[in-house]
């Protein structure tokens, strides 16, 4: 029976689909790579001039640093806001959990292109240090954008531990609330917090819609600028951007290989 099962019909077509899928996914990546090693001026193979063009461009370093700092700020604010919130919901307000499940749908109904229209309006007239600065306006938008992903990542982390027992044990032993939070709860949800951070990093490093429509120059808008002006360096910088997404998502996958961890899948960079 076992041998028969393995050879049931359709096995050849299964391989065909896998091959087609692999080809469709890999060819654009290979093509981008082949483009990136062409000579910047002559278009002939093979040279690293496209990469050195990007790496020598001060604008590249300025925008990638800006995007990275924005990501760090978004991560810090998100974790500061949501770690205590999720903790409290799990400890005292479990009734709220289904309400929160509804929040998962928000990025679907209000995608970045709608969000940016609303936010530009809502914050119009707010002071310049906020509205005109990426560290203000953009980060506010990114915290909203990242919220569902951060929330669900943390939620699965809290689900995997016994919040009540840990809290009671800590309080009974004489620890204060802040101490309980810092030295009992935080170490236990570290993996969830780290994967939330990487997810946010991937979102912020790739987010184009909100940045360009509110006229800020971040890393994705730099890629778009290179796209419009320089074909071969554009391939190089696109590959670098893919590399950042790869690294962030692989980090999440590696951290997420624990029982009970739920994978959060869709980020909002399209």
């Amino acid at each position, binding site marked *: 029976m076992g041998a028969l099962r393995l050879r049931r019909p359709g096995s050849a077509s299964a391989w065909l689909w896998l091959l087609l899928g692999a080809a469709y996914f890999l060819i654009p990546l290979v093509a981008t790579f082949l483009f990136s090693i062409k000579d910047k001026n002559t278009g002939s193979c093979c040279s690293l001039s496209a990469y050195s063009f990007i790496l020598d461009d001060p604008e590249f370093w300025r925008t990638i640093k800006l995007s990275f700092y924005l990501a760090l700020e978004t991560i810090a604010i998100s974790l500061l806001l949501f770690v205590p919130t999720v903790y409290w919901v799990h400890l005292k307000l479990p009734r709220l959990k289904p309400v929160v499940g509804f929040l998962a749908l928000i990025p679907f109904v209000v995608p970045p292109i709608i969000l940016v*229209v609303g936010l530009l309006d809502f914050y119009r007239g707010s002071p310049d240090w906020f509205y005109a600065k990426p560290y203000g306006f953009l980060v506010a938008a990114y915290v909203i954008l990242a919220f569902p992903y951060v929330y669900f990542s943390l939620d699965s982390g809290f689900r995997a531990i016994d919040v009540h027992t840990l809290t009671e044990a800590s309080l009974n032993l004489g620890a204060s609330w802040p101490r309980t939070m810092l030295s009992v709860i935080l170490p236990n949800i570290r993996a969830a917090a780290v994967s939330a951070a990487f997810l946010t990093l991937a979102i912020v490093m790739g987010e184009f819609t909100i940045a360009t429509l509110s006229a800020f120059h971040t890393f*994705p808008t730099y890629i*778009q600028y290179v796209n419009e002006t320089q074909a071969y360096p554009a391939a190089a910088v696109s590959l670098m951007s893919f590399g950042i997404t790869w690294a962030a998502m692989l980090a999440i996958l590696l951290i997420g290989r624990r029982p009970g961890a739920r994978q959060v899948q869709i980020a909002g960079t399209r």
Partner: protein
Amino acid sequence: MLVGAFKSADGSATVGNIRELFESSQIRNAYKTSIEISLVTAILGATLGLLIAYAAIREGTPRWIRSAFTTFSGVAANFGGIPLAFAFIATLGTIGIVTQFLQNQLGFNIYLHNFSLFSKTGVEITYLYFQIPLMLLVIAPAIDGLRREWSEASSNLGGSRLQYWRHIGVPILLPSILGAVILLFGNAFAAYATAYALTSGQVNIVPILIGNDVRGNVFTNPHEGHALAFGMFVVLAVMMLVYVPLQRRVSRWAR
């Protein structure tokens, strides 16, 4: 945004912006193209994603292939926007690798045969790059949920493979598939960056129109962008109203 959709250029309340959504032919066409692109990529993406997911998960396929595909999908579903658009320009653009290959090796210039990457078809091909992996991720748990006992019970009772799929497999997967199609539809419907970078903002879809309004490229009614965004919001909200009950049905078979 909701309030803005109902304001006229001078700030008084009106439903004129919303009426314009139905009357302006450019806007109507934009919604039509948007919905068309989203439908095509959702249905194609779901079909191809399902076939690939099943091929990767079914018994008899080595484990490493399965984990390679799911891991890659986790990453590829997050590719998107500007770099993805460029990857396709490097592949199927006028001097793209595949275009050149077809031209030089087979003497076939796809650009002389009505193909352009910078058109609706091009946008659809590019969107599939994140739609298929997303389908794979969403549908894999449902395929995993098809218990081996069911197929054994079916064949013990004399059912053929076809009968198994017709009466057991497809009916159980159907709510998951429909849910995934809706998710994919919304995913394509809301995408801005990819289409913008690919066509330099030339393709007439709703997010691009909103973008133009926000940038102030078109000096018309400043509230038109709000009305457009409101229209998108309504479409997506309706999708959600179908999606939520579907998810309830899906969870019935979840282990």
